[in-house]
């Protein structure tokens, strides 16, 4: 998986309440959720994401509530992938489980400016800032997580286990 796009930047401790406020949690429809994604943080998010579709964010992204509606809203907004200094742990699991590609890359974030053209290679763990010409490498995922990602999420992982006749 290689994604190329422009960086949309946000800071540290972006919580799931601002990613998708509770007042919109009366639905599980990705399209409806996407309509309100990030609106309490940045009213122009929906407009910006049309041009800049790689989120480049600080520490502890997705902290707070376990609502999976948050990564679903981001994915349905058209965000291709997220590169962060670090993710809050439930968001990290949720993103992997629903097939939203994410990568932790602490060193690169401060050197990427909003609007920079970025290429993220999930196989090699290499992130290139095309605009600045710099590239960065991160640790690969552990095999189990890589397998879940390769299957497209935890549900597909479970289905394949079932198909192979294994115990779930």
């Amino acid at each position, binding site marked *: 998986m290689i994604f190329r796009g422009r960086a949309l930047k946000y800071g540290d*401790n972006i*919580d799931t*309440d*601002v990613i998708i*406020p*509770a*007042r919109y*949690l*009366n*639905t*599980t429809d990705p399209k409806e959720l996407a309509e309100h994604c990030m609106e*309490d*943080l940045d009213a122009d998010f929906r407009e910006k994401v049309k041009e800049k579709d790689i989120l480049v964010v600080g*520490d*502890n992204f997705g*902290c*707070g*509530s*376990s*609502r*999976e*509606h948050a*990564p679903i809203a981001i994915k349905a907004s058209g965000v291709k992938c997220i590169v962060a200094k*670090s993710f*809050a*742990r*439930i968001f990290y*699991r*949720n993103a992997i*489980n*629903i097939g939203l590609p994410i990568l932790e890359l602490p060193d690169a974030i401060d050197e990427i400016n909003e609007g920079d053209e970025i290429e993220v290679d999930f196989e090699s763990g290499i992130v290139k800032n095309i605009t600045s010409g710099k590239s960065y490498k991160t640790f690969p995922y*552990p095999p*189990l*997580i890589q397998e879940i990602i390769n299957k497209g*999420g*935890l*549900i597909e992982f*479970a*289905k394949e286990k*079932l198909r192979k006749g294994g*115990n*779930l």
Partner: protein
Amino acid sequence: MGMTITEKILAAHANKKEVFPGELIFVKLDFILANDITGPLAIKEFEKIGVDKVFDNERIALIPDHSTPNKDIKSALQSKILRDFAKKYNIKFYYEVGRVGIEHALLPEEGLTLPGDCIIGADSHTCTYGALGAFSTGVGSTDLAYAMATGEIWLKVPESLKFVYYGKLSQWVTGKDIILFTIGEIGVDGARYKAMEFSGEVIKNLPMADRLTICNMAIEAGAKNGIIEPDDITINYVKERAKREYKLYYSDKDANYKEIYEWDVSRLEPVIAFPHLPSNVKKISEISKDIYIDQVYIGSCTNGRIEDLRLAAKILKGHKVHPDVRLIITPATPKTYMQALKEGLIEIFLEAGASITPPSCGPCLGGHLGVLAEGEKAVATTNRNFVGRMGHPKSEVYLANPAVAAASAILGRIGAPWEVEVKK
């Protein structure tokens, strides 16, 4: 090398002799739960897997507590999805409105979350049950779907942080202040991916309600789980309630901790977390006396138990809520409500001019039953003060213990319990 209580519980549930921090394991689950926000999404994912039954219909709780009693038509549909699924799969622990309480207050009270358990819940505050000596962590809906089908989940064994509290707590200082102080010290990601083990003489002397409050907010420091070794207080709490066998685990003397924090909390005073992070903590004696408020909320999975209501009632007795303030109080469960009624607490609240809601998570997450308008400020005994948490993105939430919240309701501004006369 010895193991921590967290590592021992995980090893036992992974059917291994030992586990190491960083290791990815599959663990068997003793109990799992979801609510009316996370449950419907989990059900949608569960149905994609293509199995025709849940792993164990007596080890799943489905708890419609967030938007109930149904706040609007769309929420009513979400609740219905949960209810229909519970019927279809014969889920034993489905709680209907009237019998439902706030999940993390309800399950310990019902004896369904027990020492030594390995528990996941599709709600971030599932870490609450660590107070009973269990491994318990919050996950998302897809994880919960997988767990409903298999009774298992993959986990990374967390590194453990040990927190040791010495001394004797002053009057009006509670478990809430201990955990807010701790988050203030280490930050909202100070325990990210890690286990927080709370210990020391202060914890040993704390009643179960305060312990539940402390573990409840471990997630607010980014932790995977909060945990307290079981003792007589734990056993006294669970022995009358337990619906299953349980097992006690303790950390080895030579267990490995990533970090050990030791604090004398004798001089700790009630603390307030200012907007917009739970780590933005200030001592009550150091804040200005002109932070006027519009609403006070006493409730939630953090501080809606009978002990919290008793504390609030002690302050509110014989007083009136300030004319400019709405005081909203939520007993966390029907049993708590009934107990508060029997003890005369509800009468004290109503005499003071408070509004009592049914058990619900509504106000805490800005769902219903007390949403804030633009520019409004609230003192809340809840767990999060993020932007827009209790309503409008330009409203503000100040986190505090129930005594501070009650005193503030009377004063009309953020104030200390000792500013209010305690009446007999």
